[in-house]
């Protein structure tokens, strides 16, 4: 349920943002509010992780998994980007 509400709010936000696109002061305020809500949420995530013994005790395993997932995401993206660049971009834009 939460995810549907979140996606809906996101879509409504985009529409409202479009209406507010010429209000520079409001836009700046919104960006500041985004930054602070991210801080708040990461702080709260920190707390709930901190009281979760299972995560705290397995932090090195979690870091190991994160490292390899990053490697996979980066390697996959770069290799496909290399193909796409050669087949679709290189010939048009440069020698």
């Amino acid at each position, binding site marked *: 349920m939460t995810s549907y509400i979140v996606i809906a709010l*996101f879509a409504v*936000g*985009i529409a*409202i943002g479009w209406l507010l696109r010429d209000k520079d002061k409001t836009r700046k305020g919104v960006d500041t509010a985004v930054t602070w809500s991210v801080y708040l949420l990461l*702080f*709260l995530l920190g707390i709930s992780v901190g009281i979760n013994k299972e995560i705290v005790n397995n932090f090195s395993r979690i870091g190991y998994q994160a490292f390899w997932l*990053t490697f996979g995401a980066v390697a996959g993206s770069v290799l496909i980007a290399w193909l796409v660049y050669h087949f679709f971009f290189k010939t048009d834009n440069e020698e």
Partner: protein
Amino acid sequence: MKGSLIILAFFAVGLLGGIYGLFPDWLLNEDLTTYALFVLMFLVGISIGSDKNAFYILRKLNFKVVLVPLTVIIGSLLGTAIISLMLADIDIKEATAVGAGFGYYSLSSIFISQLHSQELGVIALLSNIFREIITLLGVPILVKYFGKLAGIATGGATAMDTTLPVIVKFTGKEYGIIAIFSGIILTILVPILVTVILEFS
């Protein structure tokens, strides 16, 4: 970079306080996080919707550029899916959800910890921060060996802001617009793809 350090600091303060039990119980209320997430997503929506640059850029591009965010999506999901076969306690669904963060660590970690588990949320946080750091440090080498889209591809969602300067510096101004375009599309897709992967597969 400075932004990610501040965010990590907030996470670390919460983490240490949690470990040593320094915070009152009401802060641990799940509902608080949920409502904060509602507010955040609404605000992120407004921020993206009001970005005049985005629409201006769209008009200047040809159809081919949609291949760039598509590259990042396929590459990240495929790469993390393959890695999941090698990791014992992460399945394909969890791995690709982390991959679908595309470097947008703040939002993806919050989302994943809400929809799935805090442990996977922390993995997403670390993994997507690593992705940003690798991009900031690695773009010169990656571009040299894998072509001019490599920096935009590793940057993922961050190619529109935090990693844009290094991408432009090492691939040229003409790729700056493509980087912003790809970053915007991926930023919008992060919450959607993460939800689809975790809830519907």
